[in-house]
């Protein structure tokens, strides 16, 4: 509606094939880039027969920010803020994934306690991510209250982030080799408080929607995709698990000590919106249990271990920088980016909020990555959207979009 000019420009060159004979009485509708249901910015020009979608042409790149190019110009530690802004709903996972990639390249061994601390942060981020996705499904079906109930809990997660790193959304948490500081007692209190209050709220949210027939009718068999097609499209994460494939990077290629935790991988059966919703709901419960286990483990370990002993990567403690020449030299070297990263190429993936978030890093030993490619799950599976909404109705398309949880920052990089 908004971009009448835009539509005209785009529709002239639309690659719509002739669908079902003459195409005269099809309506083309421009969903986006500023449509309220596109959380983030991408355009879908849909061709409809009445309200049935016949074809759709997605256009992306509306917030292309050239992450991969910037990464080639920045020292390793400055790439962390970039990863924040990729999947901004769960930025700590991205941060950690990036740190782990560099640690893998440099061969840094991380102490168990730090690994578990990272797990806590990452699982909190996963909960935050799934909260956004699932509550937004609720909003798109028209039920606004549940959204606000769970968002109060997300604020608690943000408070925890704030205690850990000092920021709410774009956390820039952690460093190569560990975390920048230990969990403060206040932070631990807040995590405990969250663990205590969240289940009740999540239950309430579920009882608002999960067995409500209107919601079930709206979501069941909407935007379904088979496991086979999903794999061919490169789906990972909750969207793949909703189709019944229990692929989870945390289990298949454990990182950061995930092998020490006991959790199940929830899967759906038919890959529709309801399954995606349910998988995410269940994953939040699993994440809660992982956080509980990790907190128990952290408490049993010696305190004050929050980074690996790698002076050439990890900034020395400030008191030494202020007084110790050697530490000051390391400090300068690290800040200037002159860290000795070995030559080579490495791929590391973590289970991001939306699926396998991979970092393919080619290093030539310089101060910046030679090439850094992000495997961004949103980018990879959003192309299946056209196939998923064909034959569905307009309202279904919107629900499918929100249940896919396409994050524009990750999509466009």
């Amino acid at each position: 509606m908004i971009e009448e000019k835009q539509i005209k420009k785009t529709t002239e060159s639309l690659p719509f094939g002739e669908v079902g004979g003459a195409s005269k009485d099809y309506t083309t509708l421009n969903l986006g880039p500023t449509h309220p249901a596109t959380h983030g910015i991408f355009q879908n020009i849909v061709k409809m027969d009445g309200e049935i979608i016949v074809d759709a042409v997605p256009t992306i790149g509306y917030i292309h920010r050239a992450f991969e190019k910037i990464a080639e110009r920045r020292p390793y530690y400055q790439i962390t803020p970039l990863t924040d802004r990729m999947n901004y709903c769960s930025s700590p996972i991205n941060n950690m994934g990036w740190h782990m990639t560099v640690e893998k390249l440099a061969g840094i061994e991380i102490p168990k306690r730090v690994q578990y601390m990272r797990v806590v942060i990452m699982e909190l981020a996963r909960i935050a991510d799934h909260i956004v996705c699932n509550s937004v499904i609720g909003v798109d079906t028209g039920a606004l209250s549940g959204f606000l109930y769970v968002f109060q809990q997300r604020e608690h997660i943000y408070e925890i982030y704030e205690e850990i790193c000092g920021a709410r959304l774009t956390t820039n948490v952690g460093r190569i080799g560990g975390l920048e500081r230990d969990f403060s007692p206040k932070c631990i209190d807040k995590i405990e408080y969250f663990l205590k209050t969240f289940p009740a709220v999540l239950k309430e949210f579920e009882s608002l929607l999960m067995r409500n027939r209107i919601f079930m009718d709206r979501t069941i068999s909407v935007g379904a995709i088979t496991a086979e097609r999903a794999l061919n499209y490169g789906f990972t994460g909750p969207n793949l698990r909703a189709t019944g494939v229990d692929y989870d990077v945390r289990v298949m290629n454990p990182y950061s000590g995930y092998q020490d935790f006991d959790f199940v991988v929830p899967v759906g059966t038919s890959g529709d919106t309801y399954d995606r919703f349910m998988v995410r709901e269940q994953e939040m419960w699993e994440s809660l249990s992982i956080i509980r286990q990790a907190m128990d483990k952290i408490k049993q370990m010696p305190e004050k271990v929050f980074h690996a002993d790698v002076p050439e990567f990890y900034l020395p403690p400030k008191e030494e920088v202020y007084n110790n020449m050697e530490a000051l030299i390391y400090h300068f070297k690290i800040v200037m980016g002159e860290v000795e990263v070995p030559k080579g190429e490495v791929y590391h993936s973590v289970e991001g909020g939306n699926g396998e978030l991979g970092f393919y890093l080619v290093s030539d030993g310089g101060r910046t990555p030679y090439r850094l490619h992000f495997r961004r799950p949103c980018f990879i599976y959003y192309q299946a959207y056209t196939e998923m909404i064909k034959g569905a109705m307009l309202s279904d398309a919107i629900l499918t979009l929100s249940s896919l949880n396409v994050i524009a920052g990750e999509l466009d990089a």
Partner: protein
Amino acid sequence: MEDTLLHIIHDKLKSKFGEDIISAEQAYDFPVYTVSKKKIIEIISFLYNEEELGFRFLTTMCGIQFPENKGGEFCIMYQLHNMPKNWRIRLKVFTPSNDMEYPTLTGIFSTANWMEREAFDFYGFIFKGHPNLIRILNVEDMNYFPMRKEYPLEDGTREDKNDSMFGR
């Protein structure tokens, strides 16, 4: 295990494709094969279809540029995954800068569609047979391939920067 994986696949590929497998090495946790461009589609479909290998998941692919590597300035990296066995391999295909044509992978993996468009957008690879090879992330009328090393990151419109002192 990785070592054996490297060899298992290498043996299979070598016996099938011979000279087209240029090199094989182990990089961290991945067996990496450099293969020739002519046979890349055959190799991937062999990896896809062969009973024991079954690499049915394209994790990612991207272009890389090595300006110093004369005769193979550009490279495309494919990363395949066999989910049930949890095997992962990486294929690299080099091409000189005067021949940017590649066969398209969209026939095997639907997901390659946008990945190839992205590679085209960033580096200018031409994927022959691609259904819709147009720019994906950048504006349509951009006249260069921004990820190539010779182009700057910035567009020079930033006014509030003073990097005379520490400029990068």
